[in-house]
């Protein structure tokens, strides 16, 4: 087990533990803090997968943007901290069956997929390649993304308007 593996398991443990806090906490604000660490841990995993641009975007947009939005959403609610989250154990039997089924499917998927394993020596910056591909091969998706963002902006502003 080398340094790379240690760091990987560190970030994986951080992600899973924070996701556990996020799911099992009865306080929305604690859940939001759990989400903060879970998203940051995923960013660390992206770095270990040699996806440096994705990792930075993850921190910039998910940790810096979406989490703030979520916290504002929590703070907007009248009940705030005392909001009762329905995370009680209901329908235990059917839930177990569904979860077991999903587990089997995921496990088979993990086992059968031919994973493209990459050696550590192949790490290099990806931003340049992403930029070239975005401006040449993926030009139409790139411009459509701006239309999508425009739609999101107008829709969000329309819904959030009071009258």
């Amino acid at each position: 087990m080398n340094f790379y593996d240690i760091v990987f398991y560190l970030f994986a443990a951080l992600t899973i533990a924070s996701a556990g806090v996020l799911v099992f906490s009865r306080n929305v604000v604690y859940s939001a803090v759990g989400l903060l660490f879970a998203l940051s841990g995923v960013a660390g995993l992206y770095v270990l997968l040699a996806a440096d641009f994705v990792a930075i975007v993850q921190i910039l947009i998910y940790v810096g943007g979406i989490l703030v939005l979520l916290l504002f959403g929590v703070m907007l609610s009248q009940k705030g901290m005392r909001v009762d989250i329905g995370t009680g154990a209901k329908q235990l039997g059917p839930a177990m069956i569904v979860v077991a089924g999903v587990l089997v499917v995921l496990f088979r998927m993990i086992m059968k997929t031919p994973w493209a394993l990459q050696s550590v020596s192949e790490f290099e910056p990806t931003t340049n390649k992403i930029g070239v591909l975005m401006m040449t091969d993926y030009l139409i998706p790139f411009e459509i993304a701006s239309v999508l963002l425009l739609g999101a902006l107008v829709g969000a502003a329309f819904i959030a308007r009071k009258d």
Partner: protein
Amino acid sequence: MLQNFAHILVFLIFGAAFVGINITISRLLQARNPHPVKLSTYECGELPEGESWIQFNIRFYVIALIFLIFEVEIAFLFPWAVVFKSLGTFAFVEMMVFVFILIIGLAYVWGKGDLEWEKPANVPDTSVSPLTESKELTQLMAS
């Protein structure tokens, strides 16, 4: 590349260790005299009333939403900025189209007044007019 991120990891580890060690040291050194008064909120001598939780203005949410959209735009600008010198005018025009489409959105929310800060309505307190108040005050000061 991984080397550069290792620097960030070192920062993370040192930051976490700094906080952890300092809290542990202060826990070891501190004197413990718990008292309920120490847990109350300091309010300049006033007794605190109600909870610290207040409902936030919805304007914060709208501004955060608009911020998020333009943050995604910024994320798209970075890879473009890295290569646009080598790709030339075409890449520049492409990005201008991208930015222009989003500027339409900005113009929309601006024109519709979503960027205006919604101030709470200023309702003057009619029960005490400033004139009578000042009269009372002068009476009070005269006596």
